[in-house]
């Protein structure tokens, strides 16, 4: 089984204030190549902390994360190198406001992958075409709608040709009418075989796209299974209570 996992998480803990607050309290799981894992749970449950730990935006207190066979929680590992292979999409987009869409997308490939500007722009425009925003390449982020911003944020991450994409509540800051366009891009990505870890409140998306669902509460995985198992026949009382509120 060991070699199967793209990301392997062992007994991950994240404590604040010297252990007074336990955001993550021992999470062990694995994410296989090509798998779409959706993480659900109440707010404050630790699901975002879990996701942000995967690329060490949150440095865990203890436990280990292995990505592509390399233990990235080891302080000696150059995390910057591994982050290039882990795309991330944020709730608030975090586009660079002082750069055009194209510059947003080509900055990292040019500086980090040492691509030429022509190469990087060609790749970027190709990706922009897939999300239908090629005509906005010279726009600044402030000229875009929320849905457009998030689609740009997704393709910006894809420009680095990542092996896994992490989504941190990608539709939570969007107006309702824009949620669909972002989810469509994500569905397409999943269909193409991208490994994805998605923290979301979009249960419809979870049902439709997820291979596996993790229900996190109190910093631990309370229950996990296929969408059918979790939504159709939840075992844990907490899961039942949570689902009855959101469905």
């Amino acid at each position, binding site marked *: 089984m060991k070699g199967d996992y793209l990301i392997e998480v062992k007994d991950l803990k994240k404590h604040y204030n010297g252990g007074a607050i336990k955001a993550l309290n021992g999470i062990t799981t694995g994410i296989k190549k090509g798998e779409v894992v959706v993480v659900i749970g109440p707010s404050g449950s630790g699901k975002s902390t879990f996701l942000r730990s995967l690329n060490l*935006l949150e440095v865990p207190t203890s436990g280990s994360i292995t990505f592509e066979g390399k233990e990235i929680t080891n302080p000696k590992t150059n995390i910057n190198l591994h*982050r*290039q292979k*882990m795309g991330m999409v*944020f709730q608030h987009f*975090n586009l*660079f*406001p002082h750069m055009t869409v194209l510059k947003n997308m080509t900055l990292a490939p040019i500086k*980090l992958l040492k691509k030429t500007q022509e190469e990087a722009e060609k790749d970027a425009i190709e990706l922009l075409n897939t999300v239908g925003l090629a005509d906005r390449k010279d726009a600044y982020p402030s000229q875009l709608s929320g849905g457009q911003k998030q689609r740009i944020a997704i393709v910006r991450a894809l420009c*680095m040709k990542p092996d896994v994409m992490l989504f941190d509540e990608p539709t939570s800051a969007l107006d309702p009418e824009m949620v669909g366009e972002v989810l469509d891009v994500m569905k397409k990505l999943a269909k193409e075989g991208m490994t994805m870890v998605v923290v979301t409140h979009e249960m419809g998306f979870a049902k439709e796209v997820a291979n596996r669902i993790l229900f996190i509460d109190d910093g631990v995985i309370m229950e996990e299974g296929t969408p059918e198992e979790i939504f159709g026949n939840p075992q844990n009382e907490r899961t039942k209570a949570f689902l009855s509120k959101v469905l």
Partner: protein
Amino acid sequence: MEWLNKWFARLYRTFIVSDRYKTIIDGLEKTIIITIGALAIGVIIGTIVAMIKVFADGNKKLKPLDVLCNIYLTVIRGTPVVVQLLISFFIIFVSAKDGTWVATLTFGINSGAYVAETIRSGIMAIDAGQMEAGRSLGFSRLQTMKEIILPQAFKNVLPAIGNEMIALLKETSVAGYVAVTDLTKAANQIKNTTYDQVNPILLTALIYLAIVMLLTKLLGVMERRLRKSER
């Protein structure tokens, strides 16, 4: 009309005879050199100090540097610039022949302390998500700072840096304390040789005022242009 003729004659004697206006021009040149040089030094020092202070937050290795920066900020902001000039000129660079670069360096070091806090506030005002986005793409902290945070921070603090330049321009008028013939000193010299107590001083004031007004105007234009790029 009598008084006007008299005034022109006076101006002629004060500024034109023995080419004394050249002293003013030379002085103005020194003032401008010192101001621009000091601002450049100030921005460089200020950026470095600001970055050290931001990075030292949560990095124990940088603690000694952080302490050093704090000492720098305290000493520079705690002593008058004239005293700093005297220290530079009469204690540190005793053998310096030309006071201009000593003055430039001193004003630069002085300005750096104020610019540092300005730039630091500019950095702190940038949303933390920008650093996270940069890091998530694989940039190091320093790279993210350079490519993503600083360009935005500079844009935000540009008006404050412009004000610093205006303040600096006026502050350099004390450079005369250390044998630098800047604009103010030049006017003072003409006053002493011609016994004209009025015109050299007024002319100096007018020149400072004109430059400050010009700078203010330029700053406004630059600001508007920078804003436009985001719309």
